[in-house]
């Protein structure tokens, strides 16, 4: 048994009309259903896709009368006029010629050929004409209208077709709509009947936030609930804040062109207060033993970490007690590959306060990982130029069966904090977000996040 389906009001009207009158054109459906041409067009298309309506497209000829045809309709065919003149008795050829004008020749030829008239010397007399001459039936049927060719007698029409300007034949395309067998008896009510709930339905695409953005938002949310407040900072920074203020010497390999994006011919106008510049440069000269150059510090770079944003904030605000974080894009001049991007997102957070200790820092990390669903973690010592002690988190990835390095952390070196007037210990941690998102979305190629490949964006499942 075929289950009934849910129909649109338009579809119902069309089906109902076709049940009354099985073969119709769109135009006749318009009249019978009182729908707009566009509604009819859509309704027919829907029904056709459901295989409920059959649409036959056909070509047909339409016949109407031309100039001479219309004249003959009014006055009779020329041969009829000839015969009418002879009804009252035989007539002279020259008189007939005068009476009928230029149609006399063709009509006389036709009448003699068919033995409707007889000629002796110059007298023409009627012989035995039929009551209806060939072509008269067609003329009468067509009249002033347009008539489909197949409603006419072909033989009767053919004579007229040969005559100039008698008949106009137009070819027109037309659609004929009829119902399929199943539609003829189908239940139209959508409340009483059952529908085919197992039928396949078309796929629709969801508009959504970017999967990477979801991860970023999730991480932001976690740190806000852990008491951290979000700060913003520029992606373009002076080398002073990106490197010098973080105790990275000016001749350090990380500052070279091959690792860092420097902006072409762009230098910072003001990099910090004179006090900050003086103290930072002194710390460099004393500890790293080289000639510190302010021009080097003025070079603008695309930030290599968000740490420059947090350190600048601390230098400007010098809080005694604070938890802050900064989240955004950072840049590295690397060859793009499945595991490296030139631009990726980083989160960076700091804690200042009397309880700030390395174990606290580890505790915050452990809590964060727990909330993103990672419970197997450990800490290893590592090295960063601006923190001491420094640790990195290793998390165990079940799928890869190995430990992966995630966030780095440490306590800002006194060589970083003292010159900037920060007196309390500062715990700092941070790391890349794409790495976490790759684990969540099970991606092998980090580039996918920035490809904007609709195939992936439309199908990637949201992660919780």
């Amino acid at each position: 048994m075929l289950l009934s389906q849910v129909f649109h009001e338009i579809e119902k009207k069309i089906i109902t009309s076709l049940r009354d009158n099985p073969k119709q054109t769109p135009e006749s459906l318009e009249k019978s259903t009182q729908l707009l041409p566009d509604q009819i067009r859509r309704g027919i298309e829907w029904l056709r896709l459901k295989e409920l309506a059959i649409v036959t497209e056909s070509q047909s000829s339409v016949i109407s009368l031309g100039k001479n045809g219309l004249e003959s309709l009014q006055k009779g065919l020329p041969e009829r006029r000839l015969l009418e003149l002879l009804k009252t008795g035989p007539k002279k050829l020259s008189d007939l010629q005068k009476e009928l004008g230029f149609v006399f020749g063709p009509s006389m030829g036709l009448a003699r050929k068919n033995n409707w008239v007889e000629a002796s010397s110059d007298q023409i007399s009627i012989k035995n004409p039929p009551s209806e001459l060939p072509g008269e039936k067609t003329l009468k049927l067509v009249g002033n209208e347009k008539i489909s060719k197949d409603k006419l007698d072909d033989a009767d029409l053919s004579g007229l077709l040969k005559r100039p300007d008698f008949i106009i034949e137009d070819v027109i395309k037309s659609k004929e709509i009829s119902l399929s067998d199943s539609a003829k008896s189908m239940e139209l009510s959508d409340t009483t009947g059952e529908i085919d709930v197992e039928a396949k339905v078309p796929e629709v695409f969801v508009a959504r936030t970017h999967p990477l953005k979801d991860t970023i938002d999730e991480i932001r949310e976690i740190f806000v609930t852990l008491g951290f407040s979000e700060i913003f900072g520029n992606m373009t920074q002076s080398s002073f804040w990106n490197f010098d203020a973080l105790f990275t010497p000016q001749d350090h390999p990380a500052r070279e062109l091959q690792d860092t994006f420097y902006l072409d011919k762009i230098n910072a106008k003001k990099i910090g207060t004179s006090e900050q510049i003086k103290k930072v440069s002194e710390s460099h000269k004393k500890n790293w033993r080289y000639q510190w150059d302010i021009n080097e510090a003025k070079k603008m770079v695309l930030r290599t970490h968000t740490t420059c944003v947090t350190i600048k904030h601390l230098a400007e605000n010098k809080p005694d007690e604070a938890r802050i974080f900064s989240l955004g894009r950072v840049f590295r001049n690397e060859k793009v590959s499945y595991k490296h991007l030139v631009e990726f997102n980083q989160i960076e957070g700091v804690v200042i306060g009397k309880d700030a200790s390395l174990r606290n820092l580890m505790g915050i990390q452990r809590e964060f990982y727990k909330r993103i669903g990672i419970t197997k973690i450990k800490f290893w010592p590592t090295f960063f130029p601006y923190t001491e002690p420094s640790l990195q988190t290793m998390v165990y990835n079940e799928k890869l069966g190995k430990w992966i390095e995630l966030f780095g952390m440490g306590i800002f070196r006194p060589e970083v904090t003292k010159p900037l007037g920060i007196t309390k210990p500062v715990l700092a941690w941070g790391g890349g977000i794409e790495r976490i998102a790759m684990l969540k979305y099970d991606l092998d190629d980090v580039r996918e996040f920035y490809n904007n490949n609709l195939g992936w964006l439309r199908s990637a499942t949201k992660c919780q």
Partner: protein
Amino acid sequence: MPVVELSYTRLQKLVGKVSKKQISDSLPFLGLDIESEDKDLVRIEYSPNRPDYSTDFGIALGLQGLLGIKTGTVKLNIKKSNKFPIFVKSGVSKIRPFVAGIVAKNGKIDDKTIKQLMTMQEDLHFGIGRKRKKSSIGIHDLDKISFPLVYTTTNRNHKFIPLNSEQEIPISEILVNTDVGKDYGSLLGQSPHVPIIFDKNQNTVSFPPIINAAITTVTTKTKNLFVEVTGINKDDAEDMLAVVATILQTAGFTLESVKISGMKNSTPKLEQKKISVNSSLINQILGLNLNPTKIISSLKKSRLDAFSKGANIVCTIPAYRFDIFGPMDLVEEVALGYGIQNLEPILSPSQTIGKTNPVSLQLKSLDQTMIGLGYLEALNSSLTSKRVLYDMVNRDSSKIISVLDSKSQEHTILRDSILPGLIENLSRNIHESYPQKMFETGTVFTLEDPISEKINCSGISAHKDANFTEIKSVIQSALKIGFGIQIETKTTTNPTFEEGHCASIIFNNVPIGIIGKINSKIIENYKIRVPVVGFEISLSESILKNQN
């Protein structure tokens, strides 16, 4: 991070009674990452601040400490000697003024040791040597050299047989024709004179910081070594020497001093230094409560020596540990000796209340609105190419912001607009079903004092019936629902858009963006087969409030 390749069996011999597993378990807790393992071989990444870990000898010292096999400092036993003098001449003062050196005798040198010494040399050059600029090192076969030596200058026509060569080559040619010459020749500047070390018979020993002479090449037959370090700073040269001396002593050599004089040069002392640290600082920073005895034993495991003096711990630091600047570094040494794995994380309640930045909240609300309107969020890099940002979309590229020496051609300039990236995205999705609707919110950059960063939002819609009305409805609703603001549009022309289908977006009588149908030529060039409409607005000036 530099990498060193080691053999487990060799390490076991050097460390003492340990299993392979004990070694591989302990390495990460010295701050050494195992990069890869292949049976007996293990590749290890170490931090550039610990050049002593560039050889297995140095790593063995660290492991002995951590595993409690041998603790405390490694003392250098340098026999004072007058047999190996170096005289420094005035010519070097302006080029590379300092030299330091040491003699190491009676060692056994096998292939593996040579390989370890070569890696150490390269890593010292790259790291603390700053690519040989600050200091550089030469290791020679002592027995091929007749003392006294002189550290002086020579002209660029001087010839000698350099390492890995069989014939005499003039210095000017070494600088042009060899890899090291090409890489480091620029360190010597344009001076007609270059630094050189001659022996008693005027034979060239070394041409610092470029290359040694072939005659002093170290082979497996070498018994005794002469090491020289030259540099632009005496302390840096001696730091480097301290690492080499410590490693060679650990490798079984006995050390003898090289006597250096002239032009402010003197014999390096390679002395230990003392730094005090308050034990309460250690406990505060680590979140522990260790007594002085435990602190001292932890420091010893980190191969330092220490004793307590009141509340202070006085620490003795060997010369090769120049990464230790002050008390905070000692806190880390305590943590490492104590064992990072023994530090239990604690979560203390937050004293502060967290807050999302208001800008983030406003952007999020705009995102939600755009999604409600059926737009999918896209993300593109801020760094893009001139082709995508300007050329393909007919935009004026006169105020371009470029980065220097990008390794990727697709990432050479900073975007000042988001829309061009979205149009390019469409071109990579022509096989996907339509309609395609995307939006992106992000930072754009313009030249202004020196660079201004603002947040823009752009949206794009592509399908066969896409038109101006549709996209105007979208931005109008988005701004009304997202921010409660009403915009107008005013006819304009823009080369990215189709003439007669383009308008400025006006808010409070100020233009804040552009909207319209994308120029059909652009669409055609991108091989997109449906009409595209889009907009871009600046959110920073008029819409977003309270940044920070």
